[in-house]
């Protein structure tokens, strides 16, 4: 199973998470987003970039409640609330945004 980024083959697992984190690119993010039926806007990117920074700093993808709390702190309550985050990523902000961000499935998600 793999994504095709302009001819480059990027392997992913059965749920669509890429297997080699260093193979991520913004082009790949757009392709994963399409397969998740998400049209990437400014807020989507803000969340994805936030997740990548969180992973860089702590070496984990945060659980959804931790993500929303942290987004609220850094981007304000208009973005950092359950309702809005689920509007951005209807199948779960942590799961879907992590997939697009090229990170492993969040710790604590089943």
């Amino acid at each position, binding site marked *: 199973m793999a994504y095709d980024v302009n001819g480059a083959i990027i392997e992913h697992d059965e749920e669509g998470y890429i297997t080699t984190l260093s193979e991520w690119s913004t082009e790949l993010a757009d392709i994963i987003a399409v397969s998740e039926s998400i049209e990437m806007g400014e807020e989507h990117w803000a969340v994805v970039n936030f997740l990548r920074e*969180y992973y860089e*700093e*702590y*070496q*984990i993808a*945060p*659980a959804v*409640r*931790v993500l929303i*709390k*942290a987004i609220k702190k850094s981007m304000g309550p208009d973005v950092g609330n359950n309702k809005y985050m689920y509007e951005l990523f209807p199948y779960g902000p942590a799961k879907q945004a992590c997939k697009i961000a090229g990170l492993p499935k969040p*710790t*604590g998600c089943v």
Partner: protein
Amino acid sequence: MSETVKKFLYVNRKAPYGTIYAQESLEVVLIGAAFDQDVSMAFLDDGVFQLTKGQDTKDAGLKNFSPTFRALGDYEVTKLYVEQESLDERGLTLDDLQDIQYEDEDDDYAEKSSIIVVSRSGMADVMADQDVVLSF
């Protein structure tokens, strides 16, 4: 949560990379944090090696999970008990450990240290004060 909050202590007595115990413990703590219990961690014997700063696993081909301890505050795990005698025996001081902090929501988000150094008998008191003790 209508259920009673119980006190859970995760006991860490193994060095970080020689066995999988340390990494598994941290993962279980992060997952278990979703259940709104009163969670704390204990580091004694070789477990104190888990918290040292400057770990670099690149050339060893291992995942460096030591930065993840600094995320525990986000998961509301804010009590990391470290045994003084275990540090002393290994030639370590508090300065050799990572700075692990949490933001106290009840105190205007002031940053406070999560590390609580206790003596061996103090550690025995911590253990005796728990509802559930899980060892790794």
